[in-house]
């Protein structure tokens, strides 16, 4: 399902009704010479919300993020932070944001301590606060032992932590994370997700981009799906799954050692029946059907056959299916 311009505007309007918004993108477009990287995107993020921004490579996620953090200033439309239009107002807004870039290096001669002192100073912290915040941040990230190590001597995972650390150093209200979990081992991913959730609980508003859907599903309160520079849909993971009727599948489980139900294919509303296990089958329904009527017809059929049903449930599409449908729908 692809949203047209009208539906996209409806989403934006719905979001406008909420007054607690901290970030707002209003009809933002960005072009790189021939390439239209972002096309009229609009969305809002509420205070304390974790907003997962997903989309395939090249969809425009990093461009959106760079506009939000002020690295790209040449774009059409408006971006508001705390109700302030970011155009020409960056002076007072920079310190509200912490940014974890997808790629960012540090000057190789720096130690973590030296890098953090410079970033702290640039973010306007005084020397006492810098010391306090460096200790707190390093403890949070389990990097205290590495404080005086040269950055070039850190492992990949530690380097990623360092990127997160510099974003957290000045206790920003908004944390913008561009693919923060890519390249991390499972333990580190778990640790990162825990930190992100804790930060959100303490009131930090978080936007994070990823193409790893399970991570988004685990953390995000709201998800924006981006493809080819357009926002395809926005909602909570549950809402997206509920509103997306991919094939409408019914799972049927019968009692052990009893035959599976036969003849369901005879119903015109049914696409096909898939036998998954000896006692489990998946009934794939046609699209554009009255779901209540179909359930009634299937129930009748099962009753006629005296099937010993143990489970009858409508299978929700996974977030991955929702996402793929948006992406494939566009590329077909």
């Amino acid at each position, binding site marked *: 399902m692809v949203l047209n311009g009208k539906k996209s505007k409806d989403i934006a309007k719905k979001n406008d009704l909420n007054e607690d918004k901290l970030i707002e993108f209003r009809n933002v477009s960005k072009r790189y010479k021939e390439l239209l990287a972002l096309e009229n995107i609009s969305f809002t993020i509420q205070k304390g919300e974790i907003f997962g921004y997903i989309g395939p490579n090249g969809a425009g996620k990093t461009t959106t993020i*760079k506009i939000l*953090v*002020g*690295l*790209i200033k*040449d774009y059409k439309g408006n971006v508001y932070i705390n109700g302030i239009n970011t155009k020409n107002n*960056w*002076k007072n807004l*920079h*310190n509200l*944001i912490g*940014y974890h*870039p997808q*790629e*960012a*290096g*540090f*000057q*190789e*001669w*720096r130690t973590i301590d*030296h890098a953090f002192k*410079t*970033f702290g*100073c*640039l*973010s*306007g912290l005084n020397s006492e606060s810098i010391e306090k915040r460096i200790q707190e941040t390093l403890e949070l990230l389990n990097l205290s032992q590495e404080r005086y190590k040269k950055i070039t001597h850190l492992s990949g995972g530690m380097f990623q932590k360092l990127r997160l650390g*510099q974003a957290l150093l000045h206790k920003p209200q908004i944390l913008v994370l561009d693919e923060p979990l890519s390249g991390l081992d499972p333990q580190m991913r778990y640790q990162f997700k825990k930190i992100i959730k804790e930060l959100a609980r303490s009131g930090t508003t978080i936007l994070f981009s990823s193409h790893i859907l399970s991570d988004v599903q685990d953390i995000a309160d709201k998800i924006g799906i981006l493809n080819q520079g357009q926002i395809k849909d926005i909602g909570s993971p549950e809402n997206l799954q509920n509103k997306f009727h991919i094939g409408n599948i019914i799972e049927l489980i019968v009692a052990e050692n009893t035959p599976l139900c036969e003849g369901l294919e005879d119903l015109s509303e049914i696409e096909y029946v898939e036998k998954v296990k000896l006692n489990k089958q998946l009934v794939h329904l046609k699209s554009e059907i009255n779901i209540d009527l179909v359930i009634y017809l299937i129930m009748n059929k099962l009753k006629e056959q005296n099937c010993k049903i143990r489970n009858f449930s409508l299978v929700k599409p996974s977030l991955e299916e929702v996402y793929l449908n948006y992406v494939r729908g566009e590329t077909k």
Partner: protein
Amino acid sequence: MSLKLFFFDELKGYAKSKVMLVLWFGLPLLSFLIQFVNPAELEGMPISFLVAIVVSSIGGTLSVIMLSTTIVSEKNRHVYELFLIRPVRRSSLILAKFFAVYLCLVIAVSISLTIGLLFDAITGDLIENYLNITFESLIVGISSMAITCSIGIMFGVLVSSVPLAAILSVYLGSQLSSLIILPTFFIPGLNTEVLALTLGITLTIVIMGINILLFNRKQF
């Protein structure tokens, strides 16, 4: 505020990465070595004069290479993004680099020349005529180094490959800076020191102005 911080950071960086060590001790050492390798042709020439010539010519090339390759490499590794998301002026980043490298070179020249003069005083080779020429070479060298530093920054901002930046720096960097003494060949009676200083300061300001404009327009 950010300019001062970046400037001292750059100096610390050069100190920690041994760049200063190589400049401050390498250049005078090189001058001595030349004297010992080919003493016949340099008969009677004071060490201080030789140092001024060597340091000025090599220092210019070193500065343009150092600045251009460092900036390209830092651009490619997205180092600047972490600074630019904070309330800093973009121009501070390149101005700090310019001043830090220039200061390092001026100190290198001063150390080299002091050692050379001391050496000449001890050996009794200090000749007044050569002192004047040494001073002239020094002024021309310092002025041209300011220009090469600004040209190095321009290459760094414009180019995106480290080898290309290095090649351009060697081919063009120090050669362009020698433009400041060209007028003396065509217009007799011009004061070389005054001309070098005037053109050095003017061209450096113009080139750095262009650099700041280019860097401000750069998308990271």
